[in-house]
């Protein structure tokens, strides 16, 4: 098992090399000139300024040399300097990423809490009104455009009723807690600042609920399908024949088997949330990676773009690894396939 995990980590290296190579080359191949993007059209008309700029950023060297330099710096944790913010990209990422992680994590926990019970319920009551209602609900959740939902929810719950706070991560009157993890909810608990925690948590509610309508929709359908595959299996009848009640049979025998495939989807959805919440971040003024990625794209900020891509690649790879490990923990059949492989 440990050997398996180590092997999987080793596999990350070629994957990440591939990601950096492809993004690096693509970023150089597209016809946007970073010089123009950074200096503006006027300065770009002066060949001298352009030349000195190229000299300063190493843009006059051969492409492969540029890549090699980039890789060397990467090994030292140096992702380069953002052309737009003029700060090290690594620093930028560290300051933007936690906000996104906090939002995505909150959303995924919320979705799991909603979707597993709903999916199980729909499967058990298959064909009844309950099942129909759940399926309709999830369909609406999946189909509803997020930006519309976000605007409508903001209008209704913030402007009209005022039951949730508005955009941002914290009330303007509060200072962010001292940084430990970068997640305000966690850090405020560390610092024992309850008001900050309450504010951070309540700011999370609306954006994560909106994101969850989409992710919980997907997850509920998955849970229902998976549960429908487990329900007719005869080991459930074995449990009943031992004298187990229906509730016990579902809780102890059916659900643990049914959630295993749901974990995969959970991992994928979490990956999507980490990388794809640009819209929500913009609407809720959430200073997350989506924000940063948007700016980087607009200004053709290549060091930042590669840095972001790298972070996304690492997140997806780690998530996949995490999913596979959870799989093995939950399913002994996969575990023994692994130890068989180790022999």
């Amino acid at each position, binding site marked *: 098992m440990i050997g*398996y995990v180590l*092997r999987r980590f080793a*596999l990350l290296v070629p994957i990440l090399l591939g990601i950096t190579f492809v993004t690096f080359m693509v970023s150089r191949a597209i016809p946007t000139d970073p010089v123009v993007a950074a200096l503006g059209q006027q300065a770009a008309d002066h060949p001298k300024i352009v030349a000195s700029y190229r000299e300063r950023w190493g843009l006059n060297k051969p492409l492969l040399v540029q890549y090699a330099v980039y890789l060397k710096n990467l090994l030292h944790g140096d992702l380069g300097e953002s052309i737009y913010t003029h700060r090290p990209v690594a620093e930028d990422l560290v300051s933007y990423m936690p906000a996104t992680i906090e939002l995505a994590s909150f959303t995924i926990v919320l979705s799991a809490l909603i979707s597993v019970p709903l999916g199980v319920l729909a499967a058990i009551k298959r064909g009844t009104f309950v099942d129909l209602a759940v399926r309709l609900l999830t369909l609406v959740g999946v189909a509803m455009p997020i930006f519309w939902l976000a605007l409508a929810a903001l209008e209704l719950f913030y402007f009209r009723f005022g039951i949730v706070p508005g955009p941002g991560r914290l009330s303007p009157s509060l200072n962010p807690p001292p940084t430990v993890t970068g997640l305000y909810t966690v850090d405020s608990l560390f610092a024992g600042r309850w008001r900050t925690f309450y504010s951070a948590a309540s700011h999370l509610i609306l954006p994560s609920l909106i994101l969850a309508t989409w992710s919980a929709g997907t997850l509920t359908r998955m849970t229902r399908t998976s549960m429908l595959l487990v329900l007719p*299996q*005869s*080991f459930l*009848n*074995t*449990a*009943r*024949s*031992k*004298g*187990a*009640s*229906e509730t*016990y049979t579902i809780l102890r*025998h059916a659900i*643990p*088997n049914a959630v*295993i495939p749901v974990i995969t989807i959970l991992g994928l959805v979490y990956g999507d949330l980490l990388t794809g919440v640009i819209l929500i971040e913009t609407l809720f003024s959430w200073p997350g990676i989506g924000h940063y990625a948007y700016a980087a794209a607009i200004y053709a900020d290549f060091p930042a773009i590669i840095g972001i891509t790298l972070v996304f690649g690492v997140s997806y790879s780690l998530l996949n690894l995490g999913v596979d490990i959870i799989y093995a923990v*939950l*399913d*002994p*059949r996969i575990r*023994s*396939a*692994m130890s*068989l*492989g*180790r*022999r």
Partner: protein
Amino acid sequence: MADAPSLLEVEDLHVAVRAAGGPQEVVRGVSFKLDRGKAIGMVGESGSGKTLTTSAIVRLLPAAARITRGSVRFKGEELTSAPRRRLSALRGKEISLVVQDSLASLNPIMRVGKQVREPLLLHRMLNRKQGTARAAEMLASLGLPDPMRLIRGYPHELSGGMRQRAMIATALIACPPLVIADEPTTALDATVQAQIMEILSRLNCEMGVALILVSHDLGVVGEICDEIAVMYAGRIVETGPTRAILAAPKHPYTRALLESMPTANLERGQRLKAIQGEPPRIEALPSGCPFSARCGLVMDICRVTEPQLTRRDQGEVACWAAEGAGNGTGAYRVTAPTATAKAAAQADDATEREDPEEILRVEAVTRHFRAPSLLPFVRPTHVHALDDVSIAVRRGETLGIAGETGCGKSTLANCVLRLADIDYGRIVFRGRDVTHVEGEELRRLRRHIQPIFQDPYGSLNPRQRVRSLVAEPMIAHGATASESERRVSEVLQFVGLGTHIADQFPHELSGGQRQRIGIARAITINPDLIVADEPISALDVSVQAQVLNLFVDLQKQFALTLVFISHDLRSVRYLSSHVAIMFLGKIVEYGPSEEVCKNPLHPYTVALLSSVPGLRQAGARERIILRGDPPSPVSPPSGCRFRTRCPHAASICAELPPKPRVDPTGRMVACHFPGIVDTASAGDVKATEPRLSGAEVHQA
């Protein structure tokens, strides 16, 4: 005594299943009684309603089925109307269930020990720790080695036999007075099946547990049960003491079931008394007696009014013919081999002596499989599927290959069919080395070697009509449309299917019909050799007999050369002129089938023969139950591969693999002590069984 209620009384039980055209009765008035410590066997083919009956008793029917009428009383308590909580309280503690597919019936992600002890926790009889200890004891008492390790294992890590024993342990752990076992040995290997039967019989006789044993196999049921109830189309058609039913069955269906099993004293080449047709579909029962359409004794009244169970001698039977005079009984017994059959058999032998052409020779073939590794960068392990296997088949012969799961018999079939490559050795077909023929040459070779597969559904393209399925081999080998058209109807007629079937699709046919299509396909182009891999295993008992008969007809009419592969020694013995017994990739014994079955030389052959209910009298004199499961082909034991299960293993067996010894008549055996069972003192043989069962009881 007369007033005390029986342990279980089932009365006029009706079960209906929701169907498109309204509820469909699938159990139509079943009644029986079971006293404490007794065993009743419910026998029937698929769709006879036997499993629904037992599920109805514990109220674990599938969602679409429900009890519509009748009563089930357990210790005098009505179960059909009992509330759910009461049923949960009874299940596992008073009535337990052992079902067929032990892999699907165990929770794949829960440790075995937890599952075995679960009834004790559910009924609050013991705490977790005590429960685990009890589970380990229970597993040990069923002869499972190393129970402490086993209870921490997961179901997929166990072999089929071990899993089935874990299921039985679960059923017994709360000491219920009644156990319902539904096909507990189906899908298990013959020697493992014998172990499970031994356990069931012990729990019935020694522990006094009442048993309902559901099976399609009269032989299996006859071993254990005091009483037998034969079910047909949702009803019991005959019931009575086992001895009476097996000796003098009164219902024509029971008789036919008994006669459709190839037994030890049946001559080769003699047709089985197969029941014609197939079990009726429950949604389209004929009026009157549901068996009337297949019955040889059918009378006018049979087609009008369904007979009721009426008492006759020691049992009860539902048949108008049996009602009449008891006549016709003799007519249905298999008669002693007639002069013509004997003459035919002798003629057979005579032709064999003339040394007909050798069709197939397999020389020292070895085949390794790489055990699939699910992960990248992992060295695959090698499985020895075939190890130095040599066989030869002459024209007109039928070579039977028998052995348990994983012995390599299907691999051998695939190698002969050139569907699998071989690593070492040669395959010679009609004097020509075909080991490595490729392309066009291989295609031409295939014209002469035709396969028949086990799964008659999976091996037929569902989008093709029967006509084109059967014609396919001919077209592939260049026949014209009109030629093939003529031949298709000819062949369909021969395999006993009307030509009207030519326009149907495989899914519209029954299992037996589909297997006939498979056979028709194989014979259309008059191949020199047919390789049939488990061709009857997926069929109902009565249909098996029909297909076996078809093979007999083929042998007679076309001097068919056949390699017949089966785990079922009964059918192998019945059909084959020669038989090869395989164990873990090696042929351990080979010879004329009569000889091998009457006078087995290898201890494994002896054990195999003695584990088959119908063959025991003929083969071994003593019943030998092998312990444990076949060893893993990934790491076979040193020396003789059978030694870990052999009751006679000596030190030499662990050191040297036995060399095949061939006697002048061509019989081969690979054993250091061939014929030990036969030649050694009788005392030695007798010592075998007490030692084995003694060891098991001791562990308990």
